[in-house]
């Protein structure tokens, strides 16, 4: 028999939805971020979204949400395809309700996971990226407990990122799910671009992982310090 008759056609195959990687940025927009820090952070976030959009694989796999926290926590952008999102610029003002911000981010991630499950969409372990230049002004105990519970069950990856020298490393370490609870430190606002460049590369790697894979993230750039 000729092999010509044993040929699959594209139309006979299943078009399964792309496996999603939900990533939530949880960003400090308190008053201490006023001026250059918030401006550079806004540029960094925009750069991150643009980098994801131009990555052939991450573009269809990564879903981003942005939460900001100052005196209150606010959803700046809920989960969606990056192609459909426009980013509202953050303004720095008020206190540092980090606990509220992290809880809102966790709620968004849980909601998105439920939506994926209901629609039969496969997904990777979600990421939470927490960035702050100070210490919390609200109670963070519930947020810490929720994060640590999820992290210990390998249900959440958290990158804690300190901005500058005044960030409360002790607090950020409580949220980190990285080895030895390490915290990444962006030395100054001018280096946000390098951080988001690294983050977009890391997201791209994770969005291509297959069962049994432990994604090997790219090394952090020199301008990012590791706080153990």
């Amino acid at each position, binding site marked *: 028999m000729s*092999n010509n008759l044993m040929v*699959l056609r594209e139309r006979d195959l299943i078009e399964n939805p792309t496996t999603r990687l939900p990533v939530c940025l949880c960003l400090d927009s308190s008053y201490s971020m006023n001026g250059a820090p918030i401006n550079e952070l806004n540029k960094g976030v925009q750069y991150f979204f643009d980098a994801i959009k131009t990555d052939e694989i991450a573009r269809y796999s990564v879903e981003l949400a942005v939460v900001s926290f100052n005196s209150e926590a606010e959803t700046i952008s809920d989960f969606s395809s990056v192609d459909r999102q426009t980013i509202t610029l953050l303004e720095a003002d008020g206190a540092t309700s980090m606990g509220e911000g992290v809880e809102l981010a966790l709620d968004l991630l849980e909601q998105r996971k439920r939506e994926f499950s209901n629609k039969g969409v496969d997904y990777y372990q979600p990421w939470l990226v927490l960035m702050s230049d100070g210490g919390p002004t609200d109670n963070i105990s519930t947020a810490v407990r929720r994060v640590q519970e999820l992290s210990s069950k390998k249900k959440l990856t958290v990158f804690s990122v300190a901005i500058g020298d005044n960030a409360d490393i002790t607090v950020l370490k409580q949220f980190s799910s990285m080895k030895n609870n390490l915290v990444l430190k962006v030395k100054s606002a001018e280096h946000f671009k390098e951080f988001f460049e690294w983050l977009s590369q890391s997201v791209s790697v994770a969005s291509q992982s*297959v*069962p*049994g894979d*432990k994604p090997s993230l790219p090394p952090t750039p020199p301008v990012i310090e590791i706080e153990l």
Partner: protein
Amino acid sequence: MSDTWKSASAYVTGRGHLTKNIPCQDRTFELVSKHSTGVFYGLSLADGAGSYKLSDIGAEIVTKEILTYLKSNFSNLLQVKNTSKKIINNIEEQLAKEAKNREIDIKELSSTLLFVVIKNDKFIVGHIGDGVIGVLDKDNKISVLSHPDNGEYSNSTFFTTTDSYPDRLRIIKGNIVDSTGFILMSDGSDESLYDSRTKELAPVNAEIINWLNVGSSKEVKSALESNLNEIIKHKTHDDCSLGILKKC
């Protein structure tokens, strides 16, 4: 007189592995053995764990060893209640031996495992981890016999070396009555052939199994390889493999 079965299988390196210069970690194996008590037909498939460099070796070992073991113990395993435990013990023994020889952790040899074996119109099917096992009935209707068993997340699954392994080996055994064919696939292939939303196999799976009605095993193997390379692997980054078994 028992029915005669034909098989074919193939595996190809995925795009992700080609980019990273990693060997194909999927494996398939077929075994036909004639004996005075009947003919044994076996088909197995394994997908090595992506995070372990030697998982292709592990996949190769389990695909061969499982069929060799089942061939020698088929009648006994059909009758006993602890089929899963007996099979597990054998595989662990084989993997442990290899790990000792290579002086590596047994987890380096981790893989999924899917198999179907038939003798005298009785069958044993087994499945650990992701991938799909489908069955074709006499009305040419394809259905899922064993679904992917992942963790919650897409890049997690269960392997031959997983600590909770005994609970993860799903065994189905019984008599072949209306079944006329089987298909085994790794998760790379199921992205094209299994609907993750409806949990159903694409009808084209029946067509693939039926290729064995009209082509020789060698011709069908070649066709499987071509289709994996030319169409199925382009819809995934993962390695892709398929195995089929058909009553002829």
